[in-house]
């Protein structure tokens, strides 16, 4: 299994990379961690004539910044580095909770989180997390820079709205506001596999431990990550009075997952309902045990 032939470009600056992308546009692809692109090329599912290797652009694309509002990562921040970052984990715990489910540690040493967003796999965890948190991607090209909201970024399975000449330079994962708790889990045939079904939850409670909002997003269920808003179902209800199993049914009745080799549509609906029940409870419990400024 060998990749098709291509011309290799190793730009030393982002500006140079953008020039190469503009020149070759539909014939060029960005090479980041290669953990998806190299196998896809080896299986001859893609055969770009030009590869633009961004791995030498560490000066411009390696920043990992955490502030009160959230976490911003450059295109060269590998999954493993983000997963281990304590400040990021404290501010936006959902990111680390989900990253632990992305492939195996060895793949995470090389794969980039921004690359995973650009790859837009419906079975990938991080697009779901970006959508659930309402984050964005910053893309740059010789035409300029634009900020793309998660809701607009994913347009189809394995398809983002990035133009052929655009480089995703960073992504922004905002922290939820208020007294929040998050949870993420998934069910796979084998540990480290892509999930048959996965889910992330963000719960926000008030001082009386009543729900202010409750949102959920699923992995391997939709072509593009969709956020299910359960707020109307639970608003004003105290956390311990909510029937979490009923929330599972609510979600199950509102999704239309695909059936494939890995799991039938009905099995996926069942898994989504089980995960909803477990994770809504877990997220709310975390919101209660954490106080403003000391989240875990």
């Amino acid at each position, binding site marked *: *299994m*060998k990749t098709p032939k291509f011309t290799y470009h190793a730009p030393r600056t982002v500006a140079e990379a953008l020039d190469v992308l503009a020149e070759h546009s539909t014939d060029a692809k960005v090479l980041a961690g290669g*953990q998806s692109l190299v196998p896809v090329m080896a299986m001859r599912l893609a055969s770009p004539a030009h590869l633009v290797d961004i791995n030498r652009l560490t000066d411009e694309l390696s920043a990992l910044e955490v502030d009160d509002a959230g976490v911003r990562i450059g295109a060269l921040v590998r999954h493993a580095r983000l997963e281990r970052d304590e400040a990021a984990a404290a501010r936006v715990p959902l990111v680390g909770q989900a990253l632990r489910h992305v492939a195996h540690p*060895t793949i995470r040493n*090389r794969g980039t989180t921004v690359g995973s967003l650009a790859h837009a796999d419906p079975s990938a965890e991080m697009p779901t997390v970006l959508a659930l948190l309402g984050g964005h991607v910053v893309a740059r090209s010789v035409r300029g820079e634009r900020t793309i909201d998660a809701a607009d970024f994913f347009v189809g399975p394995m398809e983002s709205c990035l133009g052929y000449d655009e480089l995703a330079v960073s992504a922004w994962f905002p922290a939820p506001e208020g007294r929040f708790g998050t949870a993420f889990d998934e069910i796979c045939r084998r540990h480290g596999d892509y999930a048959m079904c996965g889910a992330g939850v963000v719960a926000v409670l008030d001082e009386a431990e009543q729900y202010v909002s409750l949102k959920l997003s699923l992995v391997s269920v939709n072509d593009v990550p969709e956020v299910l808003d359960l707020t109307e179902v639970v608003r004003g209800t105290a956390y311990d009075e909510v029937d979490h199993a009923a929330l599972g049914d609510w979600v199950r009745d509102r999704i239309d997952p695909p059936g494939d080799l890995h799991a039938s549509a009905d099995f996926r609906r069942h898994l989504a309902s089980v995960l909803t029940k477990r994770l809504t409870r877990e997220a709310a419990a975390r919101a209660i045990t954490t106080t403003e400024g000391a989240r875990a």
Partner: protein
Amino acid sequence: MTSTDHTDVGEQHLEVRLRVNGMPRRVELPVRRTLCDALRQDLGLTGTHVGCEHGVCGACTVLLDGEPVRSCLMLAVSAEDHDVTTVEGLTEPDGRLSPTQQAFVDCHGLQCGFCTPGFLTTVSAFIEENPDPTPEEAREAVGGNLCRCTGYQNIVASVLRAAEIQKERATESTEGSDA
């Protein structure tokens, strides 16, 4: 990295500087050559094994600047100026087997040996990072490597033994320097 024109073979070649097991190497290769193929074909280091060639089995795992990576998913040209450690580079400077290698011998952690180079590199990095793993952590550490014949019980035992040997050797060397 210098480009050479190989119009005869219709494919771009580059001369690449690599550091493999501490040795600087220069090699000219087609840009689409993966790191595992470069190690095996261009440098003759056939200790790195190639199984699935799409990142799933872990046989090809090498250390890049000390961290395990799949050499089948990395272009050799992207490894330029990085430190690559293969299974051939794991032995101690005095020629002794490394703690991880010794542990796999002691615990029967290999049978046919096909998957072993990937386990050895992965586990060597793991016990550096976590010198005192629990059985659960040891199992998790090899979760991304497939073995079709030894069975994982002995491999997990080897991981735990590797950590022990590493500690034993550390005490030996401090005692040695005290004396």
